């Protein structure tokens, strides 16, 4: 096997050709015989009582086959939250039912209350407009503070808008309060983490096919985790037996979290397909995506940092209100809690940490995990308050961070927020960053900017993230209602090539290229002879899919375990073939050999023997060469990094431009550096988008003001610089066999505070006494801050 194609090689992606030639197969590209089209009638108001829905006119429209309303789904289950969070007083969170179609009340703009199935999409659309709904509009509950104090409820039956009031770690509360009370210096910062719309470029799409002969269903859907979607539909929503439902997620055009979750449209097309005995399809328009995809972030936070007289960190105390929107999306309760609170040590050695999070229902779209999921929120709060402390104490922001870093010889390190960081070297990362950032040259570049009438600023940050959340035993005690292992089946075919069926799902991450690199490395075969099968529950083992930068650390490890089993069985077969015993057989570079002899047999011959078991010890060894492994990690992995950015601010307009951006990350071992760099670039763009451009806005009436690309500013090519990325610091994870950590979210986690720190630095250097501006730092906001 050419070593330049195994682990560590920048192998070009095999999936690219089909995408570049226009022959990818995304859900909406699938055409089924006799298919019909679903179009939804959606609420135009944020909050309202459904008095009547008259569908008779719609039913008479040309081409209409069926019309559904919430009444059709009162007897089926709701779409559940995947994580139970208890409040500080031990009360379980409030979990109002999330129905397939709104019933009784509509709770956000875009909430679907009816659906039309017709022969063509246009006919369905025309008919949906004829649905006559009498909806009595109620005042919208939008602002979180008023939601908590008011007596209008998003869900009347729970008589509160507070989903939970969570403390982490409750036993640390008093010590943290005392540390802050007695500290030499306390820096306080109030900030918002702006609400974002994920905006995967492929809108959601679901197509249901019901087979009456066998009473079974196939659902083609844009999912990051087809097995989870199937489980939710089967066990909670429609009750279709799992073995009668196949979920296929073919090529998926990006997810970033928004396609983790099960959505009502999936259940609707399944139920409709069964009723009309024809395939039913639905594809979201971008407007529907804006209104109904789970949004991200949306925290309002107060954070305090206490320091002693030598500038050592003593405590972080955080109070957050987290918007969960109108209904609990599947991971909406874990994101602002476990994935946020446990990260509040950052990269720092700090003895006291306490986090309080109140989750609030509002008349807005559900909010859930979006690239980074809780960790960007934690990082933003920490890294902004640290920068503010540096300002107040007149300290160098890098020196203050370095002084308080957990040092490389302190690992494993248990933080006051309860995580056990296995390895890391934050100073080494900062060294790499300082090298790339060329801090010495900053003064000169600043002069040049000033000559052109621009302010120039420098910002830096550090981040830690926790990927591959696990182990299932632990997360079960924290409220998880699922396990977070993954699975792989390695099927060595009789002719020696290999199919690997994985629970992870690739929607841009390049698994079809990177996973074979692992297999090739371990088995000494050509990676081109290894095929990855994903995204079809009828083919793959039960795995949990792709999110949280988990695919390589968890599913990659399952592949390793599966291959180890293959090698173990191969040794038995080889021992028989070479008339030796398995403990005398070695395996290296695709060849089995008997130790101390020149007897060898190739991997391919062993595979052939396994399937044509003539002269085979059938009483001791089963024929075939196929193994499945489930892998449940013993800990999270902890990627870390430091980012630096230089901005120019136009003092006349407030416009910010990113002039330089450098990222130094420690992802542990790297399978394919080209893919890793691409993941970092994409994350940086999303984080810079959050910092400067993107903001999802509802007005007081609950109307979505930023409901299209005309009003929601997506980062475009000219908004971004080229990036310098470095991943030469590699402290391999000690908790998985590959030593990998995960790289998918890093960029989105580390970049927002970096950018904001740089802008504040630029403004202050021009004499503006500004310590904070809330994201997105639009020209209007920056200009207003300067001209206060």
């Amino acid at each position: 096997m050419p070593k330049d194609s195994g682990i560590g090689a920048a192998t070009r992606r095999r999936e690219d050709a089909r995408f570049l030639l226009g022959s990818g197969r995304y859900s909406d590209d699938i055409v089924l015989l006799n298919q019909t089209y679903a179009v939804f009638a959606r609420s135009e108001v944020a909050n309202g009582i459904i008095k009547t829905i008259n569908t008779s006119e719609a039913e008479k429209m040309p081409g209409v086959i069926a019309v559904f309303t919430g009444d059709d789904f009162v007897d089926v289950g709701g779409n559940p939250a995947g994580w139970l969070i208890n409040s500080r007083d031990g009360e379980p969170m409030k979990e109002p039912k999330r129905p397939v179609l709104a019933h009784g009340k509509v709770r956000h703009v875009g909430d679907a209350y009816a659906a039309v199935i017709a022969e063509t999409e246009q006919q369905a659309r025309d008919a949906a407009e004829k649905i006559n709904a009498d909806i009595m509009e109620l005042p919208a509950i939008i602002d979180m503070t008023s939601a908590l104090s008011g007596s209008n409820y998003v869900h009347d039956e729970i008589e509160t808008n507070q989903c939970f009031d969570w403390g982490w770690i409750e036993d640390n509360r008093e010590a943290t309060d005392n540390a802050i009370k007695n500290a030499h210096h306390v820096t306080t910062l109030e900030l918002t983490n702006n609400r974002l719309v994920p905006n995967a470029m492929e809108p959601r799409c679901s197509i249901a096919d019901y087979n009456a002969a066998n009473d079974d269903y196939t659902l083609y859907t844009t999912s990051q985790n087809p097995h989870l979607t199937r489980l939710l539909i089967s066990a909670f929503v429609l009750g279709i037996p799992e073995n009668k439902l196949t979920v296929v997620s073919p090529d998926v055009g990006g997810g970033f979290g928004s396609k983790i979750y099960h959505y009502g449209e999936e259940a609707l097309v399944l139920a409709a397909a069964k009723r009309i005995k024809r395939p039913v399809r639905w594809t979201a328009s971008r407007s529907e995506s804006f209104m109904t995809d789970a949004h991200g972030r949306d925290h309002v936070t107060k954070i305090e940092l206490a320091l002693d007289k030598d500038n050592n960190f003593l405590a972080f105390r955080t109070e957050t209100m987290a918007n969960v929107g109108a209904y609990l999306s599947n991971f909406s309760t874990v994101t602002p809690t476990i994935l946020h609170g446990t990260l509040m040590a950052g990269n720092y050695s700090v003895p006291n940490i306490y986090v309080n999070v109140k989750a609030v229902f509002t008349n807005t779209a559900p909010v859930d995990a979006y690239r980074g999921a809780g960790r960007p929120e934690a990082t933003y709060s920490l890294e902004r308050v640290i920068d503010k402390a540096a300002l107040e104490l007149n300290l160098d922001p890098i020196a203050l961070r370095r002084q308080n870093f957990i040092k490389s010889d302190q690992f494993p390190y248990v933080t006051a927020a309860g995580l056990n960081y296995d390895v890391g070297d934050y100073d080494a990362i900062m060294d790499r960053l300082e090298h790339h950032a060329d801090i010495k040259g900053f003064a000169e570049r600043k002069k040049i900017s000033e000559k052109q009438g621009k302010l120039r600023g420098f910002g830096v940050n550090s981040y830690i993230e926790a990927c591959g959340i696990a182990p299932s035993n632990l997360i079960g005690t924290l409220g998880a209602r699922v396990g977070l292992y993954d699975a792989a089946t390695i099927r060595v075919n009789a002719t020696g090539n290999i199919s690997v069926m994985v629970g992870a799902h690739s929607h841009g991450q390049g698994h079809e290229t990177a996973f074979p690199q692992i297999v090739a490395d371990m088995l000494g075969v050509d990676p081109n002879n290894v095929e990855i099968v994903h995204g079809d529950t009828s083919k793959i083992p039960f795995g949990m899919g792709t999110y949280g930068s988990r695919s390589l650390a968890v599913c990659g490890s399952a592949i390793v375990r599966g291959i180890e089993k293959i090698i173990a069985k191969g040794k038995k077969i080889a021992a028989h073939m070479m008339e030796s015993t398995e403990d005398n057989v070695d395996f290296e570079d695709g060849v089995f050999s008997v130790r101390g002899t020149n007897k060898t047999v190739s991997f391919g011959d062993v595979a052939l023997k396994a399937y044509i078991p003539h002269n085979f010890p059938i009483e001791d060894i089963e024929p075939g060469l196929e193994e499945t492994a489930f892998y449940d990690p013993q800990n999270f992995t902890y990627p870390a990094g430091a980012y630096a950015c230089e901005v120019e601010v136009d003092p006349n307009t407030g416009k910010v431009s990113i002039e330089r951006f450098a990222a130094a990350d420690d992802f542990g071992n790297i399978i394919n550096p080209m893919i890793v760099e691409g993941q970092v670039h994409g994350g940086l763009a999303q984080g810079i988008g959050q910092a400067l451009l993107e903001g999802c806005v509802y007005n007081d009436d609950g109307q979505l003001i930023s409901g299209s690309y005309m009003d929601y500013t997506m980062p475009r090519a000219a908004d971004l610089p080229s990036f310098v990325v470095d991943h030469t610091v590699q402290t391999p994870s000690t908790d998985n066999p590959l030593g990998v950590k995960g790289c998918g979210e890093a960029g989105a986690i580390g970049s927002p505070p970096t950018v904001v720190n740089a802008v504040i630095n630029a403004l202050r250097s021009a004499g503006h006494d500004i310590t904070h501006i809330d994201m997105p730092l639009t020209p209007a906001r920056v200009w207003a801050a300067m001209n206060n």
Partner: protein
Amino acid sequence: MSNVTMTVNGKTVSGSVEGRTLLVEFIRNDLHLTGTHVGCDTSQCGACAVHVDGKLAKACTMFALEANGSEVSTIEGQANEDGSLNVIQQAFKDHHGLQCGFCTPGMVMAAADLLKTNSKPTELEIREHLEGNICRCTGYHNIVKAILAASGQDVSNIAAE
């Protein structure tokens, strides 16, 4: 319903469409050329980019009838004659200019349009030319690099490790 006839990727095709049928719907649903994508409903994302009579066009922003008699080319018509990736497509692959692939056809069509009139564009010119195309995955870094490389320019100086 009206009849429409056009040349798509060198082949004459015709069909019957409603007045409101968009060119992209005709391409995807009638011609089954599903490489041209739909990413928005406000003419902003460029996932639907094609060439109409040699000019870059958003196929979601034209009615099929408006393309009557036109020469249309889509991503399916971009490969070399032997079916292999053309220079731009190969550069996207070599420089990891795509991840999920959804924006990619539009990006390739936009790049081809740029290189037709500007054979050695600068990084800034490339970024500005892509103003009508959104990519959520790549952060554009490697798309820009791929287009520079496709134009035969040295990309070793593009900020990277």
